[in-house]
């Protein structure tokens, strides 16, 4: 019985992390139709920024712990804003209207560049900023010792998902965004400044990526390659849920999270295939993903 609870708890924790990682990807794709390969690099930049600053703070200072948490968020925000604006204003805006697949390749080039750029800034040695993770302690849930930090991630993920959803569905800005998602040309004709929307959304997506990285940083050792590792994971979640859909990403994350936790507990040898298996299965049945829309061509 214990392991059933463990599957649920582990699955929920992993799913919330996956959702954090995938949210930015799906937002950018939904509005801009860019499947952003560099999303993993944004995640890594957020992680590096947070780990280096927070590590420095705790190693040198005796300041209060909560400042460390604020610094993590601050880092993610600052790094996301800078990187997002730089890339969108400096490169992507010249590329709009190009083929969707070409955009994938452009962001692939970005990934190659960013990976080495990070190496230049932060070196290859791992950063280890564990204090925010360790300070929170642990609780016992259904007989299982669980890190409070992980539980907090579940909360953050829920809040983030809900606010994204509310923002899209319940605010005027969200309406404008949905108009752009639905039909870019019509939205433009109706007077929506699509370019501004794009800048806003790309920066939002970037910040979501860096935030995911910053929130993950204290639990891991931040080293080269962490970004590359999560791209395929995030893609899988987004493709399963239906690209561009927030609720899809949430459901996709939950599906993958729970299947993976179940595999770890009951059939560890299949853990490696779970993600691709779920993805191939969902796509075979629903090619557009769980929440994806089918676009029929007008003739």
């Amino acid at each position, binding site marked *: 019985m214990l392991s059933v609870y463990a599957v649920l708890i582990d699955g929920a924790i992993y799913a919330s992390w996956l959702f954090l990682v995938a949210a930015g990807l799906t937002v950018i794709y939904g509005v801009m139709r860019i499947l952003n390969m560099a999303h993993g690099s944004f995640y890594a930049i957020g992680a590096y920024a947070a780990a280096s600053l927070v590590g420095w703070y705790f190693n040198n200072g005796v300041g209060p712990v909560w400042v460390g948490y604020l610094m993590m968020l601050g880092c993610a925000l600052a790094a996301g804003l800078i990187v997002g604006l730089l890339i969108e204003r400096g490169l992507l805006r010249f590329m709009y209207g190009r083929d969707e697949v070409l955009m994938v*390749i452009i962001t*692939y*080039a970005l*990934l190659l*560049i960013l990976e080495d750029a990070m190496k230049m800034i932060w070196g290859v040695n791992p950063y280890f900023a564990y204090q925010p993770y360790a300070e929170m302690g642990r609780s016992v849930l259904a007989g299982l010792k669980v890190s409070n930090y992980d539980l907090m991630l579940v909360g953050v993920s829920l809040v983030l998902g809900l606010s994204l959803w509310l923002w899209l569905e319940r605010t005027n800005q969200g309406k404008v965004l949905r108009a752009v998602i639905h039909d870019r040309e019509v939205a433009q004709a109706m007077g929506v400044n699509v370019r501004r929307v794009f800048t806003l959304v790309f920066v939002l997506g970037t910040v979501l990526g860096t935030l995911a990285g910053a929130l993950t940083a204290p639990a891991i050792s931040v080293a080269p390659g962490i970004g590359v590792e999560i791209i395929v994971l995030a893609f899988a979640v987004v493709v399963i849920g239906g690209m561009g859909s927030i609720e899809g990403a949430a459901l996709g994350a939950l599906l993958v999270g729970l299947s993976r936790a179940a595999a770890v507990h009951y059939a560890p040898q299949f853990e490696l*295939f779970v993600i691709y298996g779920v993805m*191939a299965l969902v*796509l075979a049945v629903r*090619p557009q993903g769980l929440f994806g829309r089918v676009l029929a061509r007008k003739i």
Partner: protein
Amino acid sequence: MRLDKTELILLGVAAVLAASGLIAPQWLVFLLTMALAKSMVVQGVVMQMRAGLVTFGQGLYFCIGGYAVGMSGHFLNISDLPTLLLIGVVAAVALAMLLGLLMTRYREIFFAMLSLAFSMILYGMLVKSPALGSTDGFNVKAWTLFGWSPAAGQAPLALFVIIVAVSAVLAVLLHRYGRSSAGAMCEAIRENEVRVEYLGQSPRWVLYMNYVAAAGVSALGGGFMALAAGHIDPEMAYWITSGEFVFIALLGGTAHVAAPIIAAVLFAVVRTYAIELVPHSWQMILGITLLAIIVFLPKGLWSLFSGQARAAKAVEAKA
């Protein structure tokens, strides 16, 4: 079989290249062998690009070709080069005939993602196979050709001559394929699939055939890679390997059958010098090159040459 001018040039260049292998330094011979093997996989990517499909999983067939060669050597004790390569191609074609049924239902990003998923599943399966050396892979046995085995130290050169010959024949075939009805139909599908359907042609059938053929061609590249490098590992099916093939395909462009070959050679040269001169940031150099090509040469390197040819023509006309 009548050969047109392009085909004659291709065969002529191949003959010169094979002959120059005798005087070229050995590292260059090896580098070209690897580049030619890769260019075959890239041909598979380009075949699908011409039909408007970008695959992030061509490494699947590259890997199948390589492992088929390696495993046939180890478990079936086959060392004959044509037989080995044929086994690889047949294995890939068989798999592609199965997966193609599903893959041809998808377009654009979904095709890219699903192709990636399948190649990653193979990657996972190989990693989980200790009998095949897991991630370490295993060494491929030495090859023979119709009972003849090359003298010690001569195998790389012999393989180079073979791969040049095979590449030339393949290039001629692909050149013809590109100009055939089926090849034209692929481009038509890329341009307007609905219209193709309304011309009474089945886009899915054309894409299916194209997918299977591309798999076979890529597997041939994988087989050669295994024989040349003498080692195979699951990395061949990893998505980053597939990404590299897309990279080279874009580098060359889809305009000509020689473009992937030239791009693969250029890529190998650029990379080997980038690794030597800037060992810490060669990826960045590759990324910048890729961006520059997309921005300045959206149709690949080939547009550089054909653009010049056009300019030359214009000058001729004026004179």
